[in-house]
């Protein structure tokens, strides 16, 4: 399973390196979201600094919808996904590989988005241990839940509209806990023992487990 997961992750990342969909489309989209949020709210630095953690995670959530839709879409072209099943690739391995590939892309996107938040909103960054840990587990949870739901909706012709409807309510605890953990990190009120971080860890573990259990049934169903 681990070998298959590594191969699938490497394959998906290689496809990304060659097509550059995340770099050329999803990343610019995330920046557009940051900019239009500033239009919708108030461009005064005080307001934007205050809401920056929430806006950051909202931009990540929107971007993750595109990322998880993309990771499933590449298997629909030329029925590549059927090919994986015929080759006998481990189902859990496909799931984990996809999660890792989405995780890597989202994590890199978040690093660049953080720079955007610092430059555009004038946010000061601090509380690194909590910030890094919460970002790690939040991204892992988003990737696991996103890949599962995207695969669930993949068989339907309405997948572009179904994925956001299915995925966003499920991912809302990540948005809430990620924002709160970042607020705690930036204000310096809490560190690695933050309860919101624990919630993010639970979310990531639960959705990794559920995805690993059900992904095979979804693929074959």
């Amino acid at each position: 399973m681990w070998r298959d997961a590594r191969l699938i992750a490497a394959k998906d990342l290689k496809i990304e390196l060659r097509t550059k969909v995340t770099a050329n489309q999803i990343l610019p989209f995330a920046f557009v979201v940051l900019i239009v949020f500033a239009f919708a709210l108030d461009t005064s630095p005080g307001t934007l600094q205050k809401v920056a953690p929430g806006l950051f995670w909202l931009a990540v959530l929107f971007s993750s919808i595109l990322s998880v839709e993309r990771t499933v879409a590449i298997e629909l072209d030329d029925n590549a996904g059927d090919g994986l099943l015929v080759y006998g690739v481990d189902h859990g391995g496909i799931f984990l590989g996809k999660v890792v590939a989405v995780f890597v892309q989202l994590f890199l996107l978040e690093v660049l988005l953080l720079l955007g938040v610092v430059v555009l909103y004038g946010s000061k960054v601090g509380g690194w241990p909590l910030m890094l840990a919460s970002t790690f587990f939040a991204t892992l949870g988003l990737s696991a839940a996103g890949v599962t739901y995207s695969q669930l909706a993949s068989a339907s012709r309405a997948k572009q509209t179904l994925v956001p409807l299915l995925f966003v309510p499920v991912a809302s605890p990540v948005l809430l806990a990620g924002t709160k953990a970042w607020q705690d990190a930036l204000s310096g009120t809490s560190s690695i023992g933050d309860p919101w971080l624990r919630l993010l860890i639970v979310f990531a573990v639960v959705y990794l487990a559920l995805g690993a259990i059900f992904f095979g049934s979804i693929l074959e169903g």
Partner: protein
Amino acid sequence: MESNGYRWTRKLVGSLSLILVAATVVLGLWITPPDVVQGQLVRLIYVHPPVAWVAYLAYGVTSIASVLYLWKRTRNIKWDLLAASSAEVGVVFTGLTLVTGSIWGKPAWGVWWTWDARLTTTALLFVLYLGYLALRSVPADSHQRAVRSAIAGLIAFIDVPIVHQSVVWWRTLHQSATVLNPSLSPKIHGEMAMTLLLGFISFTFVYAWMLMHRYEIASMQQQVLDAELEQMIQERQREPELEFQRVHVKDGNDQINQPSKV
């Protein structure tokens, strides 16, 4: 088609629902006294918690039916239809929970809606199962749809304990459990407690009655789909035979017509 036993059970459940709801209305509106603090507003307690309970119950039934479909030894399309029917009734009751809570919230808290944890998570629960129903409404092979929606239903159900426990976890302004509190000492008095209990029973019967109707409709829809599929298969199987007849009858006609032409 439905059996006589099923029809009679449904009618019995329907009649009992009507009687029990009528009794709840009479007790809730006229017999029980107004609350010392909340006044007449307290009467919503006979509706709001029972409706919320039915929503949880409905999603519980959906989850159990989903597990029974996913488990190969008990796999039967009936479990899928039951899961779907229960989820649909659950969405109606979640909507009612939000509406009745909002009606209570306006005079009690001064606002129709507040970002209280339990309200927010109930709204999320509502959207989660709307997503489940949307997933089901997409045309697909019935087995594929059943597997995928069973998994979606199970994953969504994980949200239910979060909703129930959120009042404890986040300590918000929503009041804590009145009857099933940690010390198990009900903070509600005599006939009010009885009326609340009756509310729970009557709305559970209403749920059962609605579920039976919805399941019957789902079952008939499935029968129509199966019949259509069977008809299509038969037509497809008869295609070579029809083609053979068409060609040979045509040839036969030609042969019949030929001498006259000659």
